């Protein structure tokens, strides 16, 4: 499904990722772990084509992700640290926009139903500028639930979530795994990594070490 070859990235001439090579099979969940600043988030942002790499090749569903057409990243969904949405718009408006950008015409009723499931019904029409970190995480989770994707890139999905939110995230990940969806997660918690990951890849000194 995803093949990364000899990927490198430096910041101010300091290599963060050096010659990274790995593959993710269809239906597989891969967890990236490593110290702060190891390059986990950088790797995910390069895969989502938010960040440019210095060299290397990324193929997704047999298409060149870095040099190919925009449609090559159609099956890829990236959810980063921040919500990745517009603070002035409401949850419904943001989700509607994000889904339209992925070529999906999701009804307002479906969006509200999903928001209700993730506990955001009462705030669905409020601008998300007033949302807490946990609510924004729930909003991202709703987006992942509604969007069509074949590989989900998620950066620290549990950060900022309360117990209920963490339970919803846990259930969603297990649901996606049971549906044989491919996941690529960045986690800090070893126990969670072992729980969700079919494989754990550690990034140390810019290189990948499988464990």
């Amino acid at each position, binding site marked *: 499904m995803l093949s990364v070859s000899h990927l490198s990235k430096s910041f101010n001439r300091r290599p963060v990722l050096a010659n990274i090579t790995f593959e993710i099979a269809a239906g597989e969940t891969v967890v990236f772990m490593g110290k702060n600043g190891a390059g986990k988030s950088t790797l995910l942002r390069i895969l989502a084509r*938010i*960040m440019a790499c210095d060299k290397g090749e990324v193929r997704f569903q047999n298409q060149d992700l870095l040099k190919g057409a925009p449609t090559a990243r159609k099956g890829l969904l990236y959810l980063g640290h921040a919500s*990745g949405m517009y603070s002035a718009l409401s949850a419904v408006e943001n989700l509607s926009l994000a889904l339209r950008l992925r*070529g999906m015409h999701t009804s307002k009723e479906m969006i509200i139903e999903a928001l209700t499931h993730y506990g955001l019904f009462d705030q669905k029409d409020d601008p998300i500028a007033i949302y807490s970190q946990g609510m924004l995480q729930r909003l991202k989770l709703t987006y992942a639930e509604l969007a069509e994707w074949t590989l989900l890139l998620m950066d620290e999905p549990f950060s900022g979530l309360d117990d209920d939110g963490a339970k919803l995230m846990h259930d969603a990940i297990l649901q996606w795994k049971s549906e044989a969806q491919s996941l690529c997660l960045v986690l800090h918690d070893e126990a969670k990594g072992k729980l969700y990951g079919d494989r754990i890849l550690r990034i140390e000194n810019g290189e990948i070490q499988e464990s």
Partner: protein
Amino acid sequence: MFLVLLKKELYNEFRSRELILSMLVFGLSIILAYAFTSDVSRVIVANYAPGMFWAMILFVTVLGIHRSFSYEKEMDAFSMLIAAPIDRGLIYLSKWISGFIFLTVMELIVTIPFFKFLLIDFPPNPLMALGTALFINLAIMAVASLVSGVAMRARLSEVLLPVLMFPLVSPVIIAATKISGGIMAGDHYQLWQIWLLIIGSIIVIFGLVGYTLFDFITEE
């Protein structure tokens, strides 16, 4: 997809009202400063008025386009935008056209105070003045949207934006001043059409460059 992106820009502004409001307040403040400090005859003011007007528009544009891109940085919304499976050139086009709309709305509001406070006569051919102003606005925003796209990924984007934008947009402002001066003086269009051609060339060049390069310049 372009219409979805354009609607997003307009809707965001409709909700926040930050962009046009800040442009408007800044523009009116400059007009008041002009009005209270230009203690010279109406003829002299009329001669300098086109340059004063477009200089004001230049500063207001920097303010507006910076806001237009800075709300993309809040909550990292721009990442969602560029990670979407869409032609990133369309993001540039939506920024360009929405910026053109906001600038035009702002100009329509400040034009009457500009003429009234500076005690100068309205142009003899208002339709021609409006038509050329729309054309000039397109050129200003074609340059500003591209420069903002380049600057927004930089650490010191607030500093980089005017540093990059002022030199690049200067030919547009010079041409705009010449065109508006010609219209205000009632000159035949053949006397200033060369400046209109320059504006047209800038629209084509920056429009094509922006559309083509936005795919690369938006990445971190």
